[in-house]
């Protein structure tokens, strides 16, 4: 296996992009990535696209071909693969793209993610399709409802509070102010979160990431060719995907995310480093409780102590474990299939020193992308 570098990053605006179609959004990110990588375009050998539900959001399947076409790659007949893994689609697309370069099969590939969600009114119901439809959704649970049960149990077992969860949302909003691509570039207060309506108790509207339009694109190259295009390659030292039981009722503990734990352990081993060597994190905060549980399951603290990190400010941008300098899913936006690539893109910008206004001094960064309630996890470690 050879080392794989990220040589280009492109991220569209995230949000309610009423004036942009699916293909407009993809091209916006793709053009930026290709310019960033100094590519002509003809060098691209393959393309992997994370997209959760084109079929339901815009009644468009065959997304792979559509994107290749509008990216100008159909004329050179580049193979294109669409990857679906709920809201971990982007992370899994990145893993597939990584493997294709690491293996030596391709030299330069595109890893993309895209979602257009505002053309339908039932976006949150489509998001709920990442949970077990027959045995979770049928009895009336929603994605929010399942995370709410995790939150309730955490509060009961360990004494975390709704204020603690609100603190995560407040932090992510604060970080997003400095991110020009973010959906919500405004600060909020703990009280704003607490007074927002309940969606599934104890989770509220402002504990919940939006469902956004957006696309993100990374260009990967083998180490031997990366130098032709950039002086600041960022290497993917590890990218690991793991799975867990899809329904919460099948898991031994609903506060333990075994897919995350396994992927983190393997990723650290593959990149030959320890958690303390990682300087910046992008974590999948589909709900505030998701980010809190990730602190514990990644190993930033012990089980039952996630809220202490919040109280001590350890995951603020100037804390010991800066988490979501981009604003995370909550404030940068959650363009579903684009999110895993967007997280990786933020880490690359951070490691290159290109995250002006929200820059963390970092040599290594980690991205954690989750599907549904954690049945899919993708953990990647990057180094400059």
């Amino acid at each position: 296996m050879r080392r794989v570098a990220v040589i280009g990053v492109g991220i569209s605006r995230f949000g309610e992009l009423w004036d942009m179609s699916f293909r407009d959004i993809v091209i916006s990110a793709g053009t930026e990535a290709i310019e960033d990588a100094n590519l002509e375009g003809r060098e691209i050998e393959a393309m992997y696209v994370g997209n959760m539900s084109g079929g339901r959001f815009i009644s468009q399947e065959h997304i792979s071909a559509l994107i290749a076409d509008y990216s100008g790659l159909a004329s050179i007949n580049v193979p294109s693969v669409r990857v679906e893994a709920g809201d971990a689609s982007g992370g899994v697309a990145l893993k597939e793209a990584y493997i294709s370069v690491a293996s030596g099969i391709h030299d330069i590939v595109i890893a993309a993610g895209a979602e257009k969600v505002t053309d339908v009114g039932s976006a949150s119901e489509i998001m709920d399709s990442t949970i077990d439809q027959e045995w979770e959704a049928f009895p009336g649970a929603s994605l929010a409802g399942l995370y709410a049960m995790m939150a309730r149990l955490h509060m009961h077992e360990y004494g975390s509070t709704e204020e603690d969860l609100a603190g995560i949302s407040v932090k992510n909003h604060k970080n997003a102010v400095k991110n020009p691509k973010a959906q919500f570039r405004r600060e909020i207060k703990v009280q704003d979160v607490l007074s927002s309506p309940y969606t599934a108790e104890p989770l509220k509207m402002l504990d919940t990431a939006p469902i956004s339009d957006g696309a993100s694109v990374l260009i990967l190259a083998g180490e031997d060719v990366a130098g032709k295009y950039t002086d600041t390659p960022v290497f993917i030292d590890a990218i690991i995907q793991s799975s867990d039981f899809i329904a919460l009722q099948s898991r031994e503990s609903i506060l333990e995310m075994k897919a995350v734990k396994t992927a983190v352990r393997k990723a650290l081993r593959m990149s030959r480093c320890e958690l303390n060597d990682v300087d910046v994190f992008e974590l999948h905060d589909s709900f505030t409780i998701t980010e809190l549980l990730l602190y514990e399951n990644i190993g930033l603290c012990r089980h039952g102590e996630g809220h202490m990190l919040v109280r001590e400010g350890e995951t603020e941008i100037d804390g010991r474990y800066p988490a979501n300098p981009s604003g995370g899913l909550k404030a940068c936006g959650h363009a579903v299939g684009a999110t895993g690539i967007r997280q990786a893109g933020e880490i690359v910008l951070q490691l290159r020193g290109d995250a002006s206004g929200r820059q963390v001094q970092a040599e290594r960064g980690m991205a954690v992308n989750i599907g549904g309630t954690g049945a899919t996890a993708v953990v990647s470690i990057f180094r400059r």
Partner: protein
Amino acid sequence: MLPRFWRKIRYRYNLIGTECTNCGKKFYPPRNLCPECRRKSRIAEVELGETGTVVSYTVIHDSSESYKLQKPYVVALIKLDSGPSVISQIVCNPDDIEIGTRVRAIFRKYGEDGEEGIIYYGTKFEPVI
């Protein structure tokens, strides 16, 4: 939704799961393959009883279209006394439930496909008083 609902109706109306007789582990929802024993799985149906304890719960305020008339309603993760866990609605006032509440299975309506469509029934729970 209809075919896949109908297919497992036996397991929805009653708390019937499966058991791997090779290792003794019980499953709800039913599995045809034991994740521990895999190729050595020996699967048989098993009745899971009616009683259990609330592990965690939520009150759903923002529901899918099919449940909007019922909200707010209580959904819980229940650990059955027989071993497996189940996600189900609990028929009660949200104030009458907490983690640890003892509950019993009951047969209830879940919803319907419009005025002339099929009615969905299934297992819900109620607090044991």
